[in-house]
């Protein structure tokens, strides 16, 4: 029995005992409870219940990560919940405040357009050259759907990016969850051979959108290509151009967020379109955490490559023992590798020496951010549903 266990977990961290897993979960449990305090102290009963449920959900998932030593499948529950609950809460708020998902021109003039993180790379050049933000929002809290304003979103993004880098796309992005959920549904991919050059498309989209935003002085991606406009809000169609824009949003959402993930088991919007994801890849170079392939153990079965939701592993990168810069540290490859050759790693340290320590340090950081940012969104989404039920 002991031999069988050793073979099954060769090079991998075996499951932990309940007590040890609980002990390792304790810091995150305290953090999650602390993050949910604001909701728990509100007079609104739905919000209280939602805060408690969210904290329990996050703690339970982290506990399972500690207990089973696998990351991806537990993180996925959080990520899908985030992706599904965000539009529920957002659309509900928009309908209550405006009665429509279309942004009326009045709201844009008033600076009450909610600002998400996706246009951030598009704002940099116009801001640097003319000190102008080409987005119809407000810098400070602006009332209505403007929320906390652009400065707060940028501050939050900078702070989270500082600690998790490209991990943002796995632990903070509130859009990717829908396609990750879709990709999880089929047992096998129908389309297995995808041209690896498609991975470069987000960089081309990023370049095109940055230049277009500078030339047209508008957030070009939000105006023309964002698939998530279909489940958040869009420019109210006042003319044919508006209708075409909204048509593009719906087609892109249906294709890249629903159909292609079902066929390929990949996060196709993130892999083949998202310019923000491409931009965020730059911060993979500044992050202290990464994932390596231990070449001494690896027998290139390419299971890691197949499991990667963003095609961030190629034959060449596996030979080099590393992931591509688009790797978002979801942990799918580490979980999929039967030999434990794919490992969490801290830059500067030797590969496969104490990989579990690297995993733990990264997960504490990433899950703390997930609880702080994603946890709030999940709470709001749950509270919206509970308000309808209770």
């Amino acid at each position, binding site marked *: 029995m002991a031999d069988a266990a050793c073979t099954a977990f060769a090079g991998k961290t075996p499951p932990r005992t309940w007590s040890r897993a609980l002990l390792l979960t304790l810091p995150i449990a305290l953090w999650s409870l602390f*993050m949910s305090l604001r909701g728990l102290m509100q007079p609104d009963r739905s919000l209280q219940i939602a805060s408690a449920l969210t904290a329990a959900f996050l703690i339970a998932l982290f506990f399972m990560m500690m207990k089973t030593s696998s990351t991806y499948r537990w993180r996925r529950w959080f990520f899908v919940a985030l992706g599904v609950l965000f539009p529920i809460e957002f659309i509900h708020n928009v309908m209550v405040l405006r009665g429509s998902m279309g942004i009326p*021109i*009045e709201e*844009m*003039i*008033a*600076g009450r357009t909610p600002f998400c993180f996706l246009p951030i790379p598009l704002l940099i050049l*116009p*801001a640097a050259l*003319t*000190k*102008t*933000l*080409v*987005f*119809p*929002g*407000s*810098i*400070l809290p602006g009332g209505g759907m403007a929320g906390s304003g*652009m*400065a*707060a979103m*940028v*501050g*939050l993004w*900078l*702070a*989270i990016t*500082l*600690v*998790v880098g490209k991990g943002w796309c796995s632990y903070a992005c509130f859009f990717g969850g829908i396609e990750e959920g879709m990709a999880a549904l089929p047992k096998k991919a129908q389309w297995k051979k995808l041209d690896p050059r498609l991975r470069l498309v987000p960089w081309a989209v990023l370049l095109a959108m940055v230049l277009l935003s*500078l*030339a*047209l*002085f*508008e957030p070009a991606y939000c105006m023309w290509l964002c698939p998530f406009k279909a489940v958040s809000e869009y420019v109210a169609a*006042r*003319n044919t151009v508006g209708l075409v824009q909204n048509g593009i949003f719906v087609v892109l959402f249906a294709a890249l967020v629903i159909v292609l993930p079902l066929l390929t088991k990949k996060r196709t919007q993130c892999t083949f379109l998202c310019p923000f994801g491409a931009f965020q890849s730059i911060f993979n170079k500044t992050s*202290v*955490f990464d994932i390596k392939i231990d070449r001494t153990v690896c027998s290139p079965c390419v299971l890691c490559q197949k499991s990667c939701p963003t095609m961030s592993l190629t034959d060449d990168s596996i030979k080099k023992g590393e992931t591509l810069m688009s790797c978002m540290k979801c942990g799918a490859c580490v979980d999929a590798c039967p030999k434990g050759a794919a490992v969490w790693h*801290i*830059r*500067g*340290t*030797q590969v496969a020496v104490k990989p579990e320590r*690297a995993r733990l*340090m*990264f997960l*504490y*950081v990433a899950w*703390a*951010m997930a609880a*702080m940012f994603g946890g709030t969104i999940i709470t709001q989404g749950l509270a919206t549903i509970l308000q309808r039920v209770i």
Partner: protein
Amino acid sequence: MKWPTSKLGYTAAGMTVLAAVLVPFLLMGLFTKGFTKLGLHVDEMYSGGPTVRTIQADGYTITIHKAVYPHLLQTEKPFVQLDWKPVSALPQHVSDAVDVDGDGQPDVRVSFDVPKDPKTPLRVDVDALNLRYQAMRNVGKPKFSELIVRLDDAILVRVPLTEH
């Protein structure tokens, strides 16, 4: 020779954990404040440009904004924004000759109805008394540079300028 880089790596990882703890209490606020101190402003095509002066009318005011010009390939026309407020003090029909450039001569005559229901769409007529401004007939809100909208307690009219 691996140990110094190894120590550096673990130190950096430890500092990252510390930074994560500080995100909600310090870093987020710090970055937010830093961003606001950059002196950036929202594109005036949306916000309408800074206020130049205010004209007092019968119980209400007309605020005149600085003219806004499009950047690079922006598809809008240059315009000037005029705000009538408060809406509650406006007559049922407004027809004001407005001196936009402050030279003592009226430049445009702006006419619109003020419906009681704030959700009723607005339409505006603008007669150009100065060639610098473009006339508009029965215009709603087709573009950022030519529109009439109700915003909280004000009615905003954007009059396009003739492009030279």
